[in-house]
């Protein structure tokens, strides 16, 4: 549609600006108050003390560490499991394939709260049977559960679009099945695998609901820590945390965007 000769009039610019204001004003307000000396929304002067306190808060730092570890492990494991699954599923046909794909999509389409509650039932049951308590490990398993379907969904189209003969060619040239996979096939699937990994990582970072139900009594990640902070007396440390997270997201997004543009340029030069 981009070739239609639309003049982006003043009105459309204003509209986009209003939506952007709506999206960013709340974040801007948090960042603004993160520099406030006072504890309330009344401005009392500039200070970095909330940032200092944030870094001294062991609970938050510990929770941040847990969030990152879970996101890294869950997205890596989900990517391996999901990529293998997508390859296997692509060889099913007809009804069987439809059933497997639909079951795989259940965690995506069912409400998070139902997924969380059902996993909690499972882990409580298994916990009684095998004598363990919910914690880091059950949260990790749960995160893998809702990440794998995204990996399957993003790798699958790559497999169906891939030219099967390059795999056969690799076999003819003397590769065994495994070599043909990691020397040839995986490169064809890489964009899908990478976007699956990225999606898993972000969903894991952002999740609150499923973690909330499967964390047991002691495990804390960032979402849970923010949740308990907002339930206790609100501290402006949250503002400082928001500002830093926003900065991190901004930097990552800009890097990804620049990287994409760079690749597009290279592609454009090649053709």
């Amino acid at each position, binding site marked *: 549609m981009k070739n239609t000769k639309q003049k982006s009039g003043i009105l459309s610019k204003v*509209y986009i600006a209003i939506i952007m204001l709506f999206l960013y004003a709340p974040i801007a307000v948090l960042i603004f108050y993160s520099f406030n000396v006072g504890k309330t929304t009344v401005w009392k002067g500039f200070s970095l003390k909330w940032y200092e306190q944030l870094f001294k808060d062991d609970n938050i730092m510990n929770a941040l560490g847990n969030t990152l570890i879970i996101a890294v492990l869950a997205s890596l494991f989900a990517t391996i499991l999901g990529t293998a699954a997508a390859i296997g599923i692509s060889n099913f046909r007809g009804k069987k394939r439809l059933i497997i794909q639909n079951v795989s999509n259940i965690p995506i389409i069912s409400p998070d709260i139902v997924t969380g509650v059902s996993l909690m039932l499972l882990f409580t049951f298994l916990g009684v049977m095998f004598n363990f308590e919910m914690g880091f490990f059950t949260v990790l398993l749960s995160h893998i559960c809702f990440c794998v379907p995204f990996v399957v969904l993003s790798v699958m189209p790559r497999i169906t679009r891939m030219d099967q003969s390059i795999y056969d060619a690799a076999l003819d040239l003397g590769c065994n099945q495994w070599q043909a996979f990691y020397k040839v096939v995986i490169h064809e699937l890489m964009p899908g695998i990478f976007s699956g990994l990225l999606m898993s990582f972000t969903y894991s*970072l952002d999740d609150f609901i499923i973690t909330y139900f499967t964390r047991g009594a002691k495990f804390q990640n960032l979402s849970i820590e923010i949740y308990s902070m907002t339930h206790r007396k609100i501290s402006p440390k949250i503002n400082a945390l928001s500002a830093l997270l926003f900065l991190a997201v901004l930097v990552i*997004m800009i890097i990804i965007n620049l990287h994409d543009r760079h690749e597009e340029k290279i592609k454009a030069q090649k053709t």
Partner: protein
Amino acid sequence: MKSRKPSIPYIIWMLVFTMIPIIMIGFTAFTDKQGNFSLEPFTKAFNYSEVFLKSLWIALLSTAICLVLAYPLAYLIAGMKHSTQNTVIMLLMIPMWMNFLLRIYAWITLLQDNGPIDMALSLLGIHATYIGNTGAVILGMVYEYLPFMVLPIYTVMSKIDSGLIEAAQDLGSNRFSVFRRVIAPLSIPGIISGITMVFVPSASTFLVSQYLGGTDDIMIGDVIDKIFWTDQNTGSAISLILMIFIFVFLIIMNLFGDEEAIA
């Protein structure tokens, strides 16, 4: 590559972590605390039918507002230069990457008594409470899920073949009829997936209403959260009803999508 074996671990995984938990929800919903068959969880669940309806109503309103805001936005973005499109989409995504709770918390800060909005409007002589009502809950929902509506509509619109539009113009359509006869019908699949992506999470979320709503704005997700820790049976019954409702909703939406694709 031609073997089904690589999917075996995942099939087992799905059995254990997808199928069994759902069966357990179903089983728990039809038993009492002693584990005997009982319909009591459902009779208890029906005490919350009003909350259930209100949740659906809030979700419906939020979805409608998202659609009204998102559609023109997606249309405008799809008509921009390619590089500008990417930048605007990135700007839409950035707030989504912030933690879900922090985004609601930001609205608490904005809307609270003596917060920035209250202070600014007080200067104009307007005094009111902006938090703790259904409007604030809907505002929070729209804020959380607006990008989920924009992205699918934008994706569909940006894929519309510009040849189709030029053809319509050559055949004498003005901008309005190009929109009505070409762009609008072709964007329906995007609208459908946008509606599902906003409606499902907003009907089932919890916390948004706890943070921004008043006491009578409790939603069904909050009820599950509150009940599940003490009464798993009733909690399971409500979860089961919610899940079945969402699945039926998705099936209906899919039917819509297919029919439109054929027509």
